Protein backbone atom coordinates (compact mmCIF):
# COMPACT_ATOMS: atom_id res chain seq x y z
CA UNK A 1 0.00 0.00 0.00
CA UNK A 2 1.58 3.31 -1.03
CA UNK A 3 1.65 6.38 1.21
CA UNK A 4 -1.22 8.18 -0.55
CA UNK A 5 -3.53 5.16 -0.35
CA UNK A 6 -2.54 4.54 3.26
CA UNK A 7 -3.16 8.11 4.46
CA UNK A 8 -6.29 8.28 2.30
CA UNK A 9 -7.52 5.23 4.19
CA UNK A 10 -6.76 6.91 7.54
CA UNK A 11 -8.63 10.06 6.48
CA UNK A 12 -11.66 8.10 5.24
CA UNK A 13 -11.87 6.07 8.44
CA UNK A 14 -11.13 9.11 10.59
CA UNK A 15 -13.69 11.32 8.86
CA UNK A 16 -16.45 8.70 9.23
CA UNK A 17 -15.51 8.14 12.85
CA UNK A 18 -15.49 11.89 13.53
CA UNK A 19 -18.96 12.26 11.98
CA UNK A 20 -20.21 9.40 14.18
CA UNK A 21 -18.79 11.15 17.25
CA UNK A 22 -20.21 14.51 16.21
CA UNK A 23 -23.60 13.15 15.11
CA UNK A 24 -25.90 13.93 18.01
CA UNK A 25 -23.65 16.54 19.59
CA UNK A 26 -24.23 18.54 16.42
CA UNK A 27 -27.78 17.49 15.51
CA UNK A 28 -29.57 17.50 18.88
CA UNK A 29 -31.95 20.44 18.97
CA UNK A 30 -31.83 20.69 15.17
CA UNK A 31 -33.65 17.47 14.33
CA UNK A 32 -35.59 15.00 16.45
CA UNK A 33 -34.14 11.54 16.79
CA UNK A 34 -36.70 8.86 15.84
CA UNK A 35 -37.71 6.68 18.79
CA UNK A 36 -36.76 3.41 17.13
CA UNK A 37 -33.24 4.70 16.46
CA UNK A 38 -32.82 5.76 20.06
CA UNK A 39 -33.95 2.33 21.25
CA UNK A 40 -31.63 0.52 18.81
CA UNK A 41 -28.60 2.69 19.62
CA UNK A 42 -28.91 1.77 23.28
CA UNK A 43 -27.73 -1.75 22.41
CA UNK A 44 -24.79 -0.80 20.20
CA UNK A 45 -22.03 -0.58 22.86
CA UNK A 46 -22.91 -3.94 24.49
CA UNK A 47 -23.22 -5.65 21.07
CA UNK A 48 -20.02 -4.26 19.53
CA UNK A 49 -17.88 -4.69 22.64
CA UNK A 50 -19.07 -8.30 23.11
CA UNK A 51 -18.44 -8.99 19.41
CA UNK A 52 -14.85 -7.81 19.89
CA UNK A 53 -14.22 -9.56 23.21
CA UNK A 54 -15.73 -13.04 22.72
CA UNK A 55 -13.71 -14.11 19.63
CA UNK A 56 -10.51 -12.72 21.17
CA UNK A 57 -10.94 -15.35 23.89
CA UNK A 58 -12.29 -18.26 21.85
CA UNK A 59 -10.00 -17.76 18.82
CA UNK A 60 -6.62 -16.80 20.34
CA UNK A 61 -4.70 -17.94 17.28
CA UNK A 62 -7.45 -17.53 14.69
CA UNK A 63 -9.10 -20.93 15.16
CA UNK A 64 -11.73 -22.00 17.68
CA UNK A 65 -10.16 -23.39 20.86
CA UNK A 66 -12.44 -24.21 23.81
CA UNK A 67 -9.94 -26.48 25.58
CA UNK A 68 -8.20 -25.95 28.93
CA UNK A 69 -5.06 -25.36 26.91
CA UNK A 70 -6.51 -22.02 25.79
CA UNK A 71 -4.99 -19.82 28.49
CA UNK A 72 -6.56 -16.67 27.09
CA UNK A 73 -10.03 -18.13 27.50
CA UNK A 74 -9.32 -19.06 31.13
CA UNK A 75 -7.66 -15.71 31.88
CA UNK A 76 -10.53 -13.95 30.12
CA UNK A 77 -13.08 -15.72 32.30
CA UNK A 78 -11.13 -14.61 35.37
CA UNK A 79 -11.15 -11.07 34.00
CA UNK A 80 -14.88 -11.32 33.31
CA UNK A 81 -15.56 -12.33 36.90
CA UNK A 82 -13.60 -9.32 38.17
CA UNK A 83 -15.19 -6.98 35.61
CA UNK A 84 -18.64 -8.18 36.62
CA UNK A 85 -18.02 -7.76 40.36
CA UNK A 86 -16.05 -4.49 40.25
CA UNK A 87 -16.76 -2.75 36.89
CA UNK A 88 -13.15 -1.60 37.25
CA UNK A 89 -10.91 -1.50 34.16
CA UNK A 90 -7.66 -1.60 36.11
CA UNK A 91 -8.60 -4.56 38.31
CA UNK A 92 -9.92 -6.42 35.26
CA UNK A 93 -6.64 -5.88 33.43
CA UNK A 94 -4.59 -6.95 36.44
CA UNK A 95 -6.64 -10.10 37.05
CA UNK A 96 -6.61 -11.17 33.40
CA UNK A 97 -2.92 -10.52 32.80
CA UNK A 98 -1.82 -12.12 36.09
CA UNK A 99 -3.85 -15.28 35.42
CA UNK A 100 -2.47 -15.44 31.86
CA UNK A 101 1.12 -15.06 33.05
CA UNK A 102 0.59 -17.57 35.87
CA UNK A 103 -0.80 -20.17 33.45
CA UNK A 104 2.06 -19.53 31.02
CA UNK A 105 4.61 -19.88 33.83
CA UNK A 106 3.16 -23.08 35.30
CA UNK A 107 2.27 -24.99 32.12
Amino acid at each position, binding site marked *: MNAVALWGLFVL*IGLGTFLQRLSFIFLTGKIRMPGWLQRALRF*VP*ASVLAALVFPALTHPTGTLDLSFGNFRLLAGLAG*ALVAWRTRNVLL*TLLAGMLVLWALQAVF
Partner: protein
Amino acid sequence: MKPIHSDFLAGARAVLPILLGVVPFAMITGVAAVGVGLSPLDSFGMSVIVFAGASQLAVLQLMKIGSPWIIMVLTAWIINLRFIMYSAVLAPAMQKLPTGRKSLLAYMLSDQAFGVSVSYFTTHPEVDRNWFYFGTALTIWVTWQISAIAGSLLGTLIPTSWGLDFAFPLSFMALMFAALTDHPTVVAAIAGGLTAVLGKPLPNNIGLVLATLVGIGSGLLAENMLPVNRQGRAQ
Protein backbone atom coordinates in the same frame (compact mmCIF):
# COMPACT_ATOMS: atom_id res chain seq x y z
CA MET B 1 -19.56 30.64 41.93
CA LYS B 2 -16.50 28.49 41.63
CA PRO B 3 -13.87 28.99 38.96
CA ILE B 4 -14.88 27.03 35.90
CA HIS B 5 -11.65 25.18 35.31
CA SER B 6 -11.87 23.30 38.62
CA ASP B 7 -14.22 20.84 36.91
CA PHE B 8 -11.70 20.42 34.09
CA LEU B 9 -9.12 19.43 36.71
CA ALA B 10 -11.63 17.17 38.43
CA GLY B 11 -12.15 15.38 35.10
CA ALA B 12 -8.42 15.01 34.56
CA ARG B 13 -8.03 13.60 38.08
CA ALA B 14 -10.99 11.22 37.80
CA VAL B 15 -9.50 9.61 34.73
CA LEU B 16 -6.05 8.89 36.24
CA PRO B 17 -6.77 5.28 37.38
CA ILE B 18 -8.14 4.47 33.92
CA LEU B 19 -4.89 5.56 32.28
CA LEU B 20 -3.26 2.33 33.46
CA GLY B 21 -5.59 0.59 31.04
CA VAL B 22 -5.17 3.21 28.31
CA VAL B 23 -1.36 3.11 28.19
CA PRO B 24 -0.88 -0.58 27.28
CA PHE B 25 -3.84 -0.48 24.89
CA ALA B 26 -2.41 2.52 23.03
CA MET B 27 1.06 1.01 23.02
CA ILE B 28 -0.37 -2.15 21.45
CA THR B 29 -1.85 -0.15 18.56
CA GLY B 30 1.61 1.33 17.96
CA VAL B 31 3.24 -2.10 18.19
CA ALA B 32 0.64 -3.60 15.82
CA ALA B 33 1.06 -0.77 13.29
CA VAL B 34 4.83 -1.26 13.08
CA GLY B 35 4.19 -5.00 13.01
CA VAL B 36 2.28 -4.78 9.71
CA GLY B 37 5.00 -2.64 8.18
CA LEU B 38 3.86 0.93 8.87
CA SER B 39 6.48 3.50 9.83
CA PRO B 40 6.25 5.22 13.24
CA LEU B 41 5.08 8.34 11.36
CA ASP B 42 2.27 6.41 9.62
CA SER B 43 1.35 4.95 12.98
CA PHE B 44 1.22 8.42 14.56
CA GLY B 45 -0.86 9.72 11.66
CA MET B 46 -3.39 6.93 12.07
CA SER B 47 -3.49 7.46 15.80
CA VAL B 48 -4.22 11.20 15.48
CA ILE B 49 -6.59 11.00 12.50
CA VAL B 50 -8.64 8.02 13.67
CA PHE B 51 -8.08 8.01 17.46
CA ALA B 52 -10.16 4.87 18.03
CA GLY B 53 -8.01 1.96 19.17
CA ALA B 54 -10.35 -0.98 18.66
CA SER B 55 -11.05 -0.01 15.06
CA GLN B 56 -7.36 0.71 14.43
CA LEU B 57 -6.40 -2.78 15.63
CA ALA B 58 -9.10 -4.38 13.49
CA VAL B 59 -7.94 -2.42 10.43
CA LEU B 60 -4.32 -3.39 11.04
CA GLN B 61 -5.31 -7.06 11.24
CA LEU B 62 -7.19 -6.73 7.94
CA MET B 63 -4.21 -4.94 6.40
CA LYS B 64 -2.00 -7.86 7.40
CA ILE B 65 -4.17 -10.35 5.48
CA GLY B 66 -4.49 -7.99 2.52
CA SER B 67 -8.20 -7.16 2.72
CA PRO B 68 -9.69 -4.64 0.25
CA TRP B 69 -9.75 -1.05 1.51
CA ILE B 70 -13.54 -0.85 1.48
CA ILE B 71 -13.69 -3.74 3.99
CA MET B 72 -11.22 -1.94 6.24
CA VAL B 73 -13.28 1.27 6.11
CA LEU B 74 -16.61 -0.45 6.76
CA THR B 75 -15.20 -2.56 9.58
CA ALA B 76 -13.82 0.53 11.31
CA TRP B 77 -17.09 2.40 10.94
CA ILE B 78 -19.11 -0.55 12.31
CA ILE B 79 -16.84 -0.86 15.35
CA ASN B 80 -17.16 2.88 15.92
CA LEU B 81 -20.97 2.95 15.69
CA ARG B 82 -21.02 3.02 19.47
CA PHE B 83 -19.76 6.63 19.36
CA ILE B 84 -23.14 7.68 17.95
CA MET B 85 -24.76 6.41 21.13
CA TYR B 86 -22.17 8.16 23.31
CA SER B 87 -22.71 11.32 21.27
CA ALA B 88 -26.45 11.19 21.94
CA VAL B 89 -25.87 10.92 25.70
CA LEU B 90 -23.37 13.80 25.86
CA ALA B 91 -25.26 16.04 23.41
CA PRO B 92 -27.79 17.83 25.68
CA ALA B 93 -25.12 19.54 27.82
CA MET B 94 -23.25 20.77 24.73
CA GLN B 95 -26.14 22.47 22.93
CA LYS B 96 -25.07 26.04 23.72
CA LEU B 97 -21.46 25.57 22.59
CA PRO B 98 -20.25 26.98 19.27
CA THR B 99 -19.71 24.44 16.48
CA GLY B 100 -15.92 24.58 16.81
CA ARG B 101 -16.07 23.58 20.47
CA LYS B 102 -18.58 20.84 19.69
CA SER B 103 -16.24 19.51 17.01
CA LEU B 104 -13.25 19.52 19.34
CA LEU B 105 -15.12 17.72 22.12
CA ALA B 106 -16.58 15.25 19.62
CA TYR B 107 -13.18 14.49 18.08
CA MET B 108 -11.77 13.56 21.50
CA LEU B 109 -14.66 11.25 22.41
CA SER B 110 -13.43 7.88 23.68
CA ASP B 111 -14.97 4.92 25.51
CA GLN B 112 -13.04 5.82 28.62
CA ALA B 113 -13.86 9.55 28.61
CA PHE B 114 -17.50 8.71 28.09
CA GLY B 115 -17.56 6.02 30.78
CA VAL B 116 -15.82 8.08 33.46
CA SER B 117 -17.84 11.23 32.69
CA VAL B 118 -21.26 9.64 32.66
CA SER B 119 -20.71 7.72 35.90
CA TYR B 120 -19.43 10.94 37.55
CA PHE B 121 -22.44 12.93 36.33
CA THR B 122 -24.86 10.56 38.06
CA THR B 123 -23.26 11.20 41.45
CA HIS B 124 -22.31 14.89 40.91
CA PRO B 125 -25.27 16.66 39.29
CA GLU B 126 -23.78 20.11 40.05
CA VAL B 127 -20.63 19.61 37.94
CA ASP B 128 -20.02 21.62 34.75
CA ARG B 129 -20.41 18.65 32.44
CA ASN B 130 -18.53 20.04 29.45
CA TRP B 131 -15.46 21.12 31.44
CA PHE B 132 -15.38 17.83 33.32
CA TYR B 133 -15.72 15.82 30.12
CA PHE B 134 -13.06 17.96 28.43
CA GLY B 135 -10.73 17.21 31.36
CA THR B 136 -11.21 13.47 30.95
CA ALA B 137 -11.07 13.48 27.14
CA LEU B 138 -7.96 15.66 26.77
CA THR B 139 -6.05 13.70 29.42
CA ILE B 140 -6.87 10.45 27.66
CA TRP B 141 -6.05 11.89 24.21
CA VAL B 142 -2.59 13.10 25.27
CA THR B 143 -1.82 9.87 27.13
CA TRP B 144 -3.03 7.85 24.15
CA GLN B 145 -0.85 9.65 21.62
CA ILE B 146 2.30 9.50 23.75
CA SER B 147 1.76 5.80 24.50
CA ALA B 148 1.03 4.99 20.86
CA ILE B 149 4.25 6.73 19.75
CA ALA B 150 6.17 4.84 22.44
CA GLY B 151 4.61 1.61 21.23
CA SER B 152 5.58 2.23 17.63
CA LEU B 153 9.17 3.09 18.61
CA LEU B 154 9.73 0.42 21.27
CA GLY B 155 7.28 -2.10 19.89
CA THR B 156 9.73 -4.58 18.55
CA LEU B 157 11.57 -4.65 21.87
CA ILE B 158 8.60 -6.00 23.86
CA PRO B 159 8.56 -9.83 23.64
CA THR B 160 5.28 -11.12 22.19
CA SER B 161 5.36 -13.91 24.80
CA TRP B 162 4.31 -11.31 27.39
CA GLY B 163 0.95 -11.29 25.64
CA LEU B 164 0.46 -7.56 26.19
CA ASP B 165 -2.01 -7.53 23.31
CA PHE B 166 -4.32 -9.37 25.70
CA ALA B 167 -4.84 -6.02 27.47
CA PHE B 168 -7.06 -5.07 24.52
CA PRO B 169 -9.89 -7.63 25.03
CA LEU B 170 -9.53 -7.23 28.79
CA SER B 171 -10.03 -3.47 28.78
CA PHE B 172 -12.96 -3.86 26.39
CA MET B 173 -14.41 -6.49 28.66
CA ALA B 174 -14.51 -4.00 31.53
CA LEU B 175 -16.20 -1.45 29.24
CA MET B 176 -18.66 -4.11 28.11
CA PHE B 177 -19.71 -4.91 31.66
CA ALA B 178 -20.18 -1.19 32.28
CA ALA B 179 -22.58 -1.15 29.31
CA LEU B 180 -24.68 -3.97 30.80
CA THR B 181 -27.24 -1.86 32.63
CA ASP B 182 -30.30 -4.14 32.46
CA HIS B 183 -31.49 -7.51 31.15
CA PRO B 184 -31.97 -6.49 27.50
CA THR B 185 -28.40 -5.14 27.28
CA VAL B 186 -27.12 -8.45 28.72
CA VAL B 187 -29.13 -10.31 26.07
CA ALA B 188 -27.64 -8.04 23.37
CA ALA B 189 -24.09 -8.73 24.59
CA ILE B 190 -24.53 -12.52 24.79
CA ALA B 191 -26.25 -12.73 21.39
CA GLY B 192 -23.68 -10.42 19.77
CA GLY B 193 -20.74 -12.22 21.38
CA LEU B 194 -21.91 -15.71 20.39
CA THR B 195 -22.68 -14.58 16.84
CA ALA B 196 -19.17 -13.15 16.59
CA VAL B 197 -17.69 -16.47 17.74
CA LEU B 198 -19.78 -18.48 15.26
CA GLY B 199 -19.13 -15.94 12.49
CA LYS B 200 -15.38 -15.75 13.07
CA PRO B 201 -14.56 -18.06 10.09
CA LEU B 202 -16.49 -15.80 7.68
CA PRO B 203 -14.30 -13.68 5.41
CA ASN B 204 -13.73 -9.92 5.68
CA ASN B 205 -14.94 -9.53 9.25
CA ILE B 206 -18.54 -10.14 8.19
CA GLY B 207 -18.98 -11.95 11.51
CA LEU B 208 -18.47 -8.65 13.35
CA VAL B 209 -21.12 -6.87 11.29
CA LEU B 210 -23.58 -9.76 11.74
CA ALA B 211 -22.84 -9.90 15.47
CA THR B 212 -23.57 -6.20 15.91
CA LEU B 213 -26.89 -6.47 14.08
CA VAL B 214 -27.91 -9.67 15.90
CA GLY B 215 -26.97 -8.07 19.23
CA ILE B 216 -29.08 -4.95 18.58
CA GLY B 217 -31.99 -7.06 17.30
CA SER B 218 -31.85 -9.41 20.29
CA GLY B 219 -31.73 -6.49 22.71
CA LEU B 220 -34.81 -4.90 21.11
CA LEU B 221 -36.60 -8.24 21.15
CA ALA B 222 -35.76 -8.81 24.81
CA GLU B 223 -36.93 -5.32 25.67
CA ASN B 224 -40.30 -5.92 24.01
CA MET B 225 -40.73 -9.30 25.71
CA LEU B 226 -39.90 -8.05 29.19
CA PRO B 227 -42.76 -5.78 30.25
CA VAL B 228 -41.17 -4.76 33.56
CA ASN B 229 -38.18 -2.47 34.08
CA ARG B 230 -39.91 0.53 32.54
CA GLN B 231 -39.87 2.61 35.67
CA GLY B 232 -39.10 6.29 35.17
CA ARG B 233 -40.28 6.41 31.58
CA ALA B 234 -43.40 8.47 31.34
CA GLN B 235 -44.64 7.44 27.93
